[in-house]
């Protein structure tokens, strides 16, 4: 795999609902520079921590992470996500804790992190950063294909995938 320099930058992946981050061109009532309030709710914190995955580099890890996170859901629908570079998290003075993920892929689980001790200001800063980043989307057909490929490659254990998703993959 040939990587461009930007692909070596360490980043964090956060799954999002892209429709909550649409700006004025899709949301007529929104002022051009503003953001939907629902975007804040999309960064759902628990115990003042936000679940993310560490992406050491895009070329090697991104596809596997996306597939692993999609594998813990109930249906093989689209997957929206954003990448935040690690330097930005440092600049926002946000702490990072290593915690185990809960996907059916052990390699992906080891890359799980919590952004911890989040305050109103830090979360607000994070929202502003995410609003300016590219919001990526993997379409449903591609998600389903990736899940099936990961099972075939042995990266995902079909027995670890929840029954409902398994049924949709086997159809």
């Amino acid at each position, binding site marked *: 795999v040939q990587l461009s320099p930007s692909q070596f930058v360490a980043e964090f992946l956060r799954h999002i609902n892209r*429709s*909550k981050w649409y700006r004025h061109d*899709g949301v007529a009532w929104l002022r051009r520079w503003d953001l939907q309030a629902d975007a804040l709710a999309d960064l759902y914190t628990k115990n003042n921590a936000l679940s993310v995955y560490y992406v050491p580099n895009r070329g090697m890890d991104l596809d596997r992470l996306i597939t692993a996170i999609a594998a813990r*859901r109930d249906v*093989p*629908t689209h997957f929206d996500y954003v990448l935040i570079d690690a330097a930005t998290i440092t600049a926002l003075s946000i702490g990072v804790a290593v915690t185990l993920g809960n996907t059916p892929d052990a390699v992906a689980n080891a890359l799980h992190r919590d952004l911890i001790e989040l305050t109103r200001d830090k979360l607000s800063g994070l929202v502003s950063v995410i609003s300016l980043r590219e919001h990526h989307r993997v379409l449903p*057909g591609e998600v389903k294909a990736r899940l099936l490929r990961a099972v075939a490659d042995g990266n995902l254990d079909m027995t670890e995938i929840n029954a409902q998703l398994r049924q*949709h993959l086997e*159809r």
Partner: protein
Amino acid sequence: MIRTAREERFEIGVASVFSRNLVAIIEAYGNAAVSALEAVRANPHTNSDVGAECLRWLPFVRNPESYKYRLLMLRAGLMAKEIQVRDAATMALAYLQDPSTLDAVELAIDRETCRELLDDLKDLRATLAQPVRGRIPPAH
């Protein structure tokens, strides 16, 4: 069900109490349930988050009898005022990949103002225009 759904937090692809009930009701009552749901969706007082969640789960209902009616709801969703609902309809149709929806997707492309969603609709149009072989069959 719709009233209590307003209090729920939805995550894409993850079943909620609302989505479980929605799927169960349509699987039990077929077109009658879709008809009731359509009326709720059309009500301007329905929360757009709940409306979008309705559409997101329609492809995953196992009830062949109501398939065409569900497809009609998704086609209508492409023309919804709320972007969350249009987004949900687009992704539900992208999952189903039913070529009979190509005309509705083309109409939506003509009207869509959001650049990102427009790109998704164009991708969907390209997929639907392909020969059926090799595509994931619709989940009835």
